[in-house]
């Protein structure tokens, strides 16, 4: 454990993060637990999944520094590898594993700063 950190405080932080995460996940179920869910909410529930995945893709890329080509080029190459492999083989283990390993190799050996 790092020297500035104590076990009780770490446990407290973990508990806080766990409780907030649970509240956020449970909120809609508690809010709409009555018999009938409004039609607009049901519609949103139906069309939202692909939009949320699209959002998460951008969210994942948001931590990458796009002003430094050594940072974003490997990320884009690795994403292209994932997509092409997935179109070709449709095997998620292969696509995710190869994309991650490709990214690690690219930033460690090819595009190192």
């Amino acid at each position, binding site marked *: 454990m790092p020297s500035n950190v104590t076990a009780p405080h770490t446990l407290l932080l973990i508990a806080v993060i766990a409780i907030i995460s649970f509240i956020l996940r449970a909120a809609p*179920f508690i809010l709409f637990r009555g018999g009938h869910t409004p039609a607009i909410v049901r519609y949103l*529930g139906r069309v939202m999944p692909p*939009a949320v995945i699209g959002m998460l893709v951008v969210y*994942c890329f948001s931590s990458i520094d796009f002003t430094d080509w050594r940072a974003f080029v490997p990320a884009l190459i690795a994403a292209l590898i*994932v997509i092409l492999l*997935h179109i070709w083989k*449709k095997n998620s283990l292969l696509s995710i594993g190869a994309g991650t390993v490709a990214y690690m190799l690219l930033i460690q050996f090819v595009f190192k700063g």
Partner: protein
Amino acid sequence: MKKGKMSKTIRRALRDTFPIFAGYLVLGIGFGVMLAKAGFGTYWAAIMSCTMYAGSMQYVAVDLLANAVTVGSAVLMTFLVNIRHVFYGVSLIDKYRYAGWRKLYLMFALTDETYSLVSTVEVPEDVDKNNYYFFVSLFDQLYWICGCCIGALMGNLVPFNSAGIEYAMTALFVCIFADQWLSAGGKKLLCGKHISAIVGFGATLVSLIVCNVLGFEYFLIPAMVIILVALILLRPVLDRKEEDYAE
């Protein structure tokens, strides 16, 4: 008969969660290695993956724990990173309505990956839906705990250059996105069924760029507002498309 249905449900859940098994193992290892490099023992990885069980939040939490931040900052950070989970429940209110005793766990275990499977999967007739959702959620968490602990052990015992391993999360969502795109379009590369995916991707990208220019850090919140408004405005178009799905 009943026993046969149960084993069928478990087998089906195992089969469908295989991509998540792959993603969570890599992603969990990435988290475990990071936690170990920050100076925490393996049991912390076990505690966190059992109680928080949140992919990206656990990555963020490594920083929070290592810097021993205040409870207030932990609350705020969790809220901002996980507010998107409010979206997920909205899609699953009807699916989880009759889950009974399982519901508490289903709500707790509703991660990005479990959501992406449960919200899109077609459960076959001969499989019990509620048990299926339960086993999918449970197996996913078990994969995650295994990945986190393996990673923490590796990080504490094996010296290796783990730079870039956090890309597993990006690869996972790019893969899910590609998968949904291909199955929504059938043979077509671009069609009306891709509108929602484009809205989500486009709105978040625009929000990210604008927030970067304005120096506002939490671009996910405006992105979610734009997505909500856009989907509500597109309802006349998308509701018809949905009827096409249903035949």
